[in-house]
């Protein structure tokens, strides 16, 4: 299997647009592919397709439950917790778990010498599986509202990829922090989608530097080409980063996307260029296959 992450430092550059169009084009040309929406805070990829929901997986973490009849208010659990999620006032015998801050590390249970802490699962989100012809083709991670970190849900979604699949397309979360790293770390190649504006350039630069620090090969797609200036092109040239494609700005494209439709479905030339782009990436990087 070959895994391609589609990412962007800046949000809204067309990352999901590129991911769904690549996926659609691969499938249409008879290739075996799976689309994984790792943007768990704002998952939008599955909505472009009409595939059948064939399974859901609840993602939970274990949070502490304190048995106050056994607690001696020694505050050791509070001391062990690095996330300030145990609130304790020993003189007045008050102890409370602040579940929203808990990362489920289990340190408090290890700390407690009185058997006062047990654990229960707490919901973080859902992984949904969408299938076609008995085969999972879209995996969506969706974080619950109010949850702090998307990372556990993203991890759970990536775990669902069948290693027998030919190509996995990972729609990555924006930014360059934990959720982004978690997604791109598992990929063989990263497609960075940017736009030719000062904000686009600034965020692209940060993404490129981050990917270099973890030795991840990448290439760039400039979306909405013609809208801003040439600074992004100059940067990509100077840094010798492969420019994979330029997608010209068009109101028509923006309109098709805004309706939740896929351009590659009605534009065979665009679909064809996406398929050959992916085939070239695999040809050049196919031997660097990710292992964990």
């Amino acid at each position, binding site marked *: 299997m070959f895994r391609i992450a589609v990412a962007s*430092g*800046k*949000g*809204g*550059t067309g990352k*999901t647009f590129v991911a769904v169009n690549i996926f659609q084009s691969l499938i249409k040309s008879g290739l075996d592919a799976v689309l994984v929406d790792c943007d768990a*805070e*704002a998952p*939008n990829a599955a*909505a472009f397709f009409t595939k059948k929901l064939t399974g859901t997986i609840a993602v939970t*973490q*274990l949070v502490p439950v304190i048995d106050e009849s056994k607690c001696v208010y020694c505050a050791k659990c509070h001391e*062990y917790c*690095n*996330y300030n999620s145990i609130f304790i006032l020993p003189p007045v015998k008050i102890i409370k778990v602040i579940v929203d801050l808990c*990362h*489920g*590390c*289990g*340190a408090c249970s*290890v700390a407690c010498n009185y058997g006062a802490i047990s654990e229960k699962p707490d919901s973080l989100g859902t992984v949904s599986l969408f299938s076609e012809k008995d085969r999972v083709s879209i995996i969506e991670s969706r*974080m619950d*509202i*109010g*949850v*702090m*970190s*998307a990372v556990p849900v993203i*991890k759970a979604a990536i775990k669902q990829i069948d290693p027998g699949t030919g190509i996995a397309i990972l729609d990555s*979360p*924006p*930014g*360059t*922090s*934990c959720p982004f*790293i*978690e997604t791109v*770390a598992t990929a063989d190649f990263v497609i960075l989608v940017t*736009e030719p*504006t*000062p*904000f686009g350039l*600034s*965020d692209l630069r*940060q993404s490129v*530097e*981050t990917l270099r*620090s*973890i030795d991840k090969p990448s290439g760039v797609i400039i979306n909405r080409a013609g*809208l*801003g*200036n040439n600074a992004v092109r100059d940067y990509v040239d100077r840094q010798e980063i492969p420019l994979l494609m330029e997608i010209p700005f068009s*109101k028509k494209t*923006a*309109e098709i*996307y*805004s*309706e*939740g439709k896929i351009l590659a479905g009605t534009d065979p030339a665009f679909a064809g260029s996406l398929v050959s782009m992916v085939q070239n990436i695999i040809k050049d990087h196919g031997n660097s296959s990710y292992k964990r």
Partner: protein
Amino acid sequence: MEIAVISGKGGTGKTSITASFATLGGDVVLADCDVDAANMYLLFNPVHDEESVFVSGHKAVIDYDLCTSCALCMNYCRFDAISEDRGRIVISEISCDGCFLCSRICPEKAITMVPDDKSRMYSGSFRKGRMVYGRLAPGEENSGKLVNAVREKAKQTAAQYGLETIIIDGPPGIGCPVISTISGVDRVVIVTEATRSALSDMERAVEVVRKFSIPAFVIINKFDLNESMSKEIEEWCAGNNVVVAGRLPFDRQITEAMIESKSINEYNPESETGKKLRVIWNKIVS
């Protein structure tokens, strides 16, 4: 008054609109809380007079002179960060959550927790007042702690310089940094655009804002890219008691202004977008 601008979906024009608000009235404190992609400084070239180190978390590091490869840490780690590779215990920097548990239970005291200290917070002046912004180092956990630090600094700055308005450019998404951005503010502005994806992300953002009972205002940007979609967003807002503060057309001048390091209201205040933004701003602060 503290006003936070968020979006759910990225790239809806949140930062450009925030920049416009910052240049519409008197001097303000501008806080860039999109610490993952802090871009506001590109428009305003602030002169920073203060830089501080921000520790975003910790990472576990093994001292191999002490490690006996007992693998106890591996059994305790809930983040799949510790594995064994040919008899050697390895900690993945990417997966480590910095919970300290392995360092506490290691019988050989072979694990130390090293602070992540590459992130920075800056404060300084710009042409419309004071600016505070954070820059999170790549790969560090955006736990909202840096957002809290930026907001705290912005409040101090407002008091120190006698500035009444704090405008916050928030991060995309609905996670921890967004929650830190909006908790306790007086107004939340949600910038959306006329696409199906943006509507779905806006619905999630509104739900987060609801948890804090803060008045929310929606701005539909680029409404003319799909007017029926824009109508659908307005209908959703009407049905969910969310105020639509205004609609803005798709406008290439926003990008032109950005290239000139200006907000649209500095670049062309009499443009349709400029005028509309002035009306929207007055609605929000009234």
